[in-house]
Structure formats: structure tokens, C-alpha cells
């Protein structure tokens, strides 16, 4: 007989996988934020571990390089007491010609409950989600989405400036190659924020205004307009052709330094998802200034990823 009790039941996510922010509804985002807040308290304790996911096994499958995201996920999993296995494409059978689905099915045959995956091809986690049972967390798929980064960015913004509805967020830099930009646009729009993207016209994707953002090509205009500036890295490794003449020229026109921040007649919050190219999109004095919450973002990353894993695991 089912016992009855009075405790408040937790809301559930509307999705089984976290493939992208596009699939989430505003309630999901709110639930993740609220849960992450409790986990942030947990990771700031002397003993930073809770036993919630002690019977869950998670595979971190990284087909592309990563430092922060991978460490952050791994730490989040360990703080939740999950068993983890790590896989990186270099030094694996992928090099021998194994397909993505075969690789993942082999991992799942070892009784894995959740997959955290990064892949260079946009849509790779969506493809997998149609074929496998395990919960999938997208840790970045090519130039498409990076949902946990956008969630931790929103969490960090909320910590500084409160509710994001009506707030003005500028995303500055290489928008074309950035999965962080797209996920951030979806996340911010769903929370009612105004979004402006700013960068050289060659690095702004066509039709991006369809997402409801405004476009600027003047970084000073963007800084004067915004409450928060999220600065993105120039992703040289994804640029097969020249999008701007030189890094020096990019830095002169779109780089942000402390002087520009000091000249504003207001306080803004400066963010960067990392890794920073110091002296290109951000000067060192700006990156290390009191405006910057770059290291808070990294700390919050663990709490937000704990929340995502916890909420997905809760559905089983």
C-alpha cells in the first residue's frame, strides 16, 4: 500500500535529456536554478558530498577537447556520489573507425545510466537520444548548443543582478562559431531578458535576428546599452577561412579593456565562458577587474551541473 505523506513534491523537468536550451520551458529553467542554489550551498560546506546518485553510473563521453566542462561535470558527478567513467576519442577505438552509435551502445552495455557527451558535430546528442535509453546531457555539440554553460551563465547573472526579466544582456565576440552564444540567447529569451549580440559582421550568423535579438557592430554601443556583457572567445580552431584581417585588428575594434569599463557611467557585469584569449577579446586588466565574475561562473558550473544531473536522475 502506498504511504501518504505531506512533503512538497518536487516538480519534474519536462524532458528526459538535456540536449539544448531550445527544448526547455521557462519552468524547467526556474527549477534548475532553484535546485542549483541548494547544491551551491552543498559545495561550499567542509564536506562537499551528498549521496543522492549513489546507484547511478555516468559516462563522460568527450569526442572533443575540454578542460573546464569535463572537470566540472566530473566533479559534479563525484559530489553527487555517482560512479563515473571517462572516455575521450583520442586513444580510443573511434580512431579505428567505430561509429558513434556503436561506441555509445558498447558503453551502455556496461550498464550506464547517463551519458554526458561532447561532440564536434551539431545534433550528435539529438541523434543518440533517438536510439538509446540512457539520459543524455549535451556538453557541447559543435557550433550548436552548450546548454549547461548557458544555465550556469544565467545562474551567475541572477546571483549578481537578480531576476533576468527585462535585463539587458550583450553577447560580444565570435557568435558564428559559438554554441555558448546560441544556448545563451535561448536561455535569456526564455527568462524575459533583452539580448544584443555584437561582433564583426563576418562573425554574426545570418538570420540570427529570428531569435529575437538585436545586432550591433560597435562594442562601445553594446557596453553602454547592457547590464551584463558576456564576452566570447574567438574560436580560431573552427575558422577555416579568414573572418577578419588580424587578431590585433579584432582586438582594437572589439576587444574590451578596463578603461572602456571605467568610462561607462554605470556598473556592468563582465562574463566569459573561458578559455580567455587574454589581450584579444578581453585585456588582462578587464578580466581580473571587479566587474568580472568569470571565476564565479566556474564555481557555479559545478552546482548547476549537479542540479541538471540530479533532476534528470530523479525521473527514473
Amino acid at each position, binding site marked *: 500500500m502506498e504511504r*501518504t505523506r505531506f512533503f512538497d513534491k518536487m516538480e519534474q523537468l519536462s524532458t528526459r535529456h538535456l540536449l539544448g536550451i531550445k527544448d526547455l520551458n521557462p519552468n524547467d529553467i526556474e527549477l534548475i536554478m532553484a*535546485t542549483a542554489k541548494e547544491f551551491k550551498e552543498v559545495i561550499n560546506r567542509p564536506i562537499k558530498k*551528498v549521496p543522492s546518485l549513489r546507484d547511478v553510473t555516468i559516462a563522460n563521453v568527450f569526442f572533443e577537447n575540454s578542460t573546464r566542462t569535463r572537470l566540472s561535470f566530473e566533479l559534479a558527478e563525484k559530489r553527487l556520489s555517482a560512479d563515473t567513467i571517462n572516455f575521450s576519442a583520442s586513444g580510443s577505438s573511434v580512431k579505428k573507425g567505430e561509429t558513434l552509435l556503436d561506441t555509445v551502445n558498447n558503453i551502455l552495455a556496461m550498464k550506464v545510466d547517463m551519458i554526458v557527451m561532447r561532440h564536434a558535430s551539431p545534433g550528435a546528442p539529438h541523434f543518440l537520444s533517438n536510439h538509446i535509453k540512457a539520459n543524455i546531457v549535451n556538453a557541447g555539440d559543435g557550433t550548436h548548443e552548450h546548454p549547461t554553460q548557458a544555465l550556469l551563465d544565467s545562474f551567475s547573472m541572477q546571483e549578481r543582478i537578480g531576476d533576468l526579466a527585462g535585463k539587458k544582456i550583450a553577447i560580444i565576440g565570435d557568435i558564428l562559431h559559438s554554441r555558448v552564444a546560441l544556448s545563451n540567447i535561448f536561455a535569456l529569451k526564455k527568462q524575459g531578458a533583452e539580448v544584443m549580440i555584437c561582433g564583426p559582421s563576418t562573425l554574426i550568423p545570418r538570420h540570427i535576428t529570428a531569435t529575437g535579438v538585436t545586432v550591433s557592430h560597435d562594442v562601445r554601443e553594446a557596453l553602454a546599452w547592457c547590464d551584463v556583457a558576456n564576452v566570447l572567445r574567438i574560436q580560431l580552431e573552427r575558422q577555416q577561412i579568414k573572418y577578419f584581417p588580424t587578431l590585433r585588428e579584432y582586438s582594437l575594434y572589439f576587444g574590451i579593456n578596463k578603461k572602456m569599463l571605467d568610462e561607462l557611467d554605470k556598473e556592468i557585469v563582465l562574463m566569459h565562458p573561458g578559455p580567455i584569449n587574454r589581450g584579444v577579446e578581453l585585456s588582462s586588466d578587464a578580466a581580473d577587474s571587479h566587474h568580472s565574475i568569470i571565476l564565479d561562473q566556474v564555481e557555479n558550473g559545478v552546482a548547476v551541473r549537479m542540479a541538471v544531473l540530479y533532476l534528470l536522475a530523479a525521473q527514473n
Partner: protein
Amino acid sequence: MQRKLILSTPLLEITISRICQELIENHQDFANTVILGLQPRGIYFAERIKHELSTILNKELPIGYLDATFYRDDFRRREPLKPNANKVPFIIESKKVILIDDVLATGRMVRAALDAMTAFGRPEKVELCVLIDRIYNRDLPVKADYFGKKVNTLDTEKVLVEWKEQGFLIKWNNSVLVIF
């Protein structure tokens, strides 16, 4: 849903002061003792106990709120519960802890709370204080050191404590109800 009142003011006030007297008997001036209310509902009872003790002893006592949601053993086995805030502004290492909850039924929440507590240190001693002890609903060997009232209920029944702090607008101000 049928409701039956089993405890209300002023008997509730008398019960609280009786429990406080028992606590003082064992902990004297509370020099090395802290109070931990268990989220989500035990905190109201804990605040009442703390307020009463502070008045009697004429000093402020340390109180914390403990949330054991992440330590439950039924995660992924039934509907998940909403996590609540932890607020433990002290280290419980070598302290005597009085763990306070409103209703003791299966004992599973208390087991989770004992687990959760270790994140804040190793207590010298833990005692359990509950307002309502549902004596025949236990799953685990857990016993309350202090209790307000023992009741005999079925698994399908609910026991609800309604505090006026929670915003319940009822004629008894504070009450304990059994709901069939």
C-alpha cells in the same frame, strides 16, 4: 477527506513547555547543545522549542535548519521531494544535537538526517525530539527521546501539523490533525 483534531492550543502550548522542561533536565544550561530543526516542517516546531527555552534560560540558543532531501534512500524509487535550504550557522563537531521534527513515522527521514548531519561535523550525541510519534508506522529502528503525543495511525492516514507561522488560518491557531 475526513479530518480529526488530535492536539490544539492550549494543550499544544502545555506540551511544548513540558518538552522544554525535559530538555532542560538533560541539558541544563545548553552550554554544549545545539538545536537542529528538520526541513521542511520540523523547523516551525524547532523555533517554538527554541523560543520557549530561550525565555526560560534567558539566553539565545543556537538553532539550525537541516535539509536531508539529498540524503534520502528512496531517490529514483518514488516521486522526488523538493529540496529546501540548509541553514546550519555552526559546526556540530563534539556538540550535543537535539534533532527536531514535527512527525515521526517511518524513521527514514531521521536516518537521512543523521547522514546529512555528518557534513557539519561529528556530534557527541544526537537526541530526537518530535511533536507526534506515529508509533506503529516505523520502518527503521528509530525512537524519539522526547515526544509530544503518541498516536496510533494507519499507513494510509496522514498526520498534519498546522502552525500559524505557516499561514494556516484556522480557528485553533495551531493544531495537529489526523486526516483519513
